[in-house]
């Protein structure tokens, strides 16, 4: 009896973090208090109108829309890791699938709220359903984002069912009603052959379904811009340009989450250096693809220098947005991709730092895509106050932009306190079988 069975060890390791502790309460208290401050800022916007933000008639989409694009982008990683890598039969990504799905769900859910924060009349939100016009890309966006949220939620939930059963059985220290909830949610899972078969088939089906939907949400989001005739947005490659960019920010988000889960929940045996190494390589791959699209997006109009495109390109390359533009390109894309080519850099800590740069860069990249184009419309901006001519975000606006980020952190933190963030059942199945054959729990197949 000295040797603990391998599956028991896995179970206890992976369920260890499901408990209330002081640091979690402090963390949530901090997030909640910050969120309240941001919500007050939103209250002033509801009361006084969108004028509390720096956006005006010319730059009318500012930080909120940049934020929306960033959120939709980051949520795409769920599709890449759990669907594409899963369908390709990649084994190493299995422990990361749930982290990716949690990130996908949290970001997609909050993206819906971000877009509401940008509305002049949020009280008329239902008009989109009552009077919805199928010609408008906004209606397409709402449709596909909703479908994406549903499929992502299912892709998070279905593979979780066996784990919920394990939670119900093994989590002896949680209150009774908590275990009852696990039991209810596990839908009387017993791990019979038939159940496993249904589960595998449905997960596979959803993994296939989510690919076109995920491509659709970010392509449609890019069309919000590309379907206008403004210089800087009027581009035919915006769809793939946005999608590849999405994988960059999403991968960075997953790496950051991996790092903190690994160190905070003591999961070094499950999220290993190998995982960081592979994720590092994945990040290099998606960054290079994104770099290729960037090259196309800026080099082609930059070569021709058509009148209005030229104003846009000049503003970005050498004008008022040059520092931000080159920082996002170099610090957020080129240098990280270059550094990650070296094995030494694909270790947890360096990758955390690099990923933070990539993620912050990804946010500002969205800002660079959204804002500068509007500062130089076809007709000159005249006879308006200076505040209309140059976009400067206000403090209220910044707070309202931070609110969704806090909300995402809250959702991710809460979810990872109630469900195992690494698929327990799968880990048990994948564990190398020992000769004693002590992997005989009732649910193992």
């Amino acid at each position: 009896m000295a040797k603990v069975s391998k599956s028991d060890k896995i179970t206890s390791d992976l369920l260890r973090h499901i408990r209330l502790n002081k640091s979690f309460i402090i963390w949530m208290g901090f997030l909640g208090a910050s969120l309240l401050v941001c919500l007050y800022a939103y209250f002033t916007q509801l009361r006084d109108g969108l004028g509390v933000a720096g956006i005006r008639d010319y730059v009318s989409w500012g930080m909120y829309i940049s934020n929306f694009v960033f959120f939709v982008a980051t949520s795409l990683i769920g599709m890449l890791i759990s669907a594409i890598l899963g369908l390709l039969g990649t084994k190493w990504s299995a422990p990361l699938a749930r982290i990716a799905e949690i990130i996908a769900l949290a970001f997609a859910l909050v993206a819906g709220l971000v877009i509401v924060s940008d509305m002049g009349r949020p009280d008329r939100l239902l008009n989109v359903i009552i009077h919805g016009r199928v010609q408008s890309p906004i209606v397409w966006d709402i449709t596909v984002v909703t479908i994406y949220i549903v499929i992502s939620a299912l892709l998070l939930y279905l593979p979780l069912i066996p784990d919920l059963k394990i939670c119900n059985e093994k989590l002896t220290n949680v209150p009774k009603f908590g275990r009852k909830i696990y039991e209810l949610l596990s839908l009387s899972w017993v791990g019979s052959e038939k159940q496993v078969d249904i589960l595998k088939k449905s997960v596979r089906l959803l993994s296939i379904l989510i690919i076109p939907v995920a491509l659709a949400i970010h392509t449609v989001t890019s069309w919000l811009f590309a379907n206008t005739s403004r210089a800087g947005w009027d581009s035919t490659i915006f769809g793939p340009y946005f999608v590849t960019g999405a994988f960059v920010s999403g991968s960075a988000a997953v790496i950051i989450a991996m790092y903190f889960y690994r160190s905070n929940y003591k999961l070094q045996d499950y999220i290993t250096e190998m995982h960081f190494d592979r994720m590092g390589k994945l990040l290099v791959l998606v960054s290079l693809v994104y770099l290729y699209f960037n090259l196309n997006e800026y080099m082609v109009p930059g070569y021709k220098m058509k009148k209005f495109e030229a104003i846009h390109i000049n503003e970005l390359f050498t004008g008022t947005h040059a520092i931000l533009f080159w920082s996002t390109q170099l610090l957020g894309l080129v240098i990280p991709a270059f550094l990650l080519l070296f094995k030494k850099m694909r270790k947890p800590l360096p990758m955390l730092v690099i990923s933070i740069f990539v993620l912050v860069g990804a946010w500002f990249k969205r800002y660079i895509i959204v804002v500068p184009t509007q500062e130089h419309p076809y007709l000159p901006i005249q006879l308006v106050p200076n505040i209309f001519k140059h976009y400067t975000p206000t403090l209220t606006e910044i707070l309202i932009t931070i609110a969704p980020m806090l909300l995402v952190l809250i959702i991710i933190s809460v979810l990872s306190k109630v469900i195992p963030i690494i698929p327990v059942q799968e880990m048990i199945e994948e564990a190398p079988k020992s000769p004693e054959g002590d992997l005989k729990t009732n649910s193992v197949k």
Partner: protein
Amino acid sequence: MSEKEDKPKKKNRREFLQELGYVGVGAVLGGSAIFAGINYDKRKKQIDRIKVLTAENQLMEIDRNLASQVPKSKAEILTYNQKEGREGIPGKRWVMVIDLSKCKNAQKCMGACQGAHHLRPEQSHIKTLKMQESVNTQPYYMPKPCQHCDNPPCVAVCPVDATYKRPDGIVLIDNERCIGCRFCVAACPYSARYLNWTKPLHDEEDKDKVYNVELNVPQKKGTITKCLFSADRLREGKLPYCVSACPNGVFYFGDENEDAVTNGTTNETVRFRKLLADNGGYQLMPELGTKPRVYYLPPKGKEYPFQDKDRNETEEQVNNS
């Protein structure tokens, strides 16, 4: 006593005759009165009685005096305005011609627009822009209203059908439906759409007014406002506010179907196509495929040279407001 007894007898006889006479006269009078009454009633039936339809869908006839008009509720007037505002003015295809050679940057068009639509000082549906194509070409002033495109990008992107194209060519905005997403602002290449970012100018005064979609008053916080070709004035058979306000004869406005446009200053009506043909009329950025309904006549032989001091003054005014 006998005398006393006799008197009533006599009186009785006289009385009888008298009464007989009364009855006769009375009968005649009464008869004619009844006759007149019946006649009157007959006529009354025809004139003073009206047919009304009850809420139960029954057709009834009542005395006109008894009937009173049910006042229309605000919601009903609004619904009517919105319906009328979507149908437009039948048979018309409104066009505007702006003669750039005449514009002296008086900005009366802007003022009239702001006044009519209750706009804030920094807002105006029409702006007299200083234009200059390149270093060596002369600058000129260009009044720029909404172009009321026949292929309007703003209408295409609107998610709720709040902005729409009417059969008479006008692109209108229904600020009772607008959700304030500003996709139309992003899509419009002419920068012709504006949001009420804060409380509108006459928010308090206009509080009880029923929304007139053809005037876009009252303005509403968080919704779009834009040039409407003064659809409310067109309905009354008048020229748009900006067109009438111009002191320099810059604007022509009229109906493409009739091939006639009227100058707002001189009230002279000319052939629309001939005006364009004779003066090299053109559209703004037609290469975008928007098919504008506003035409420009080039700033050839300007009566008023461009002066930079005009610009600086107006910029200062706006910034100080």
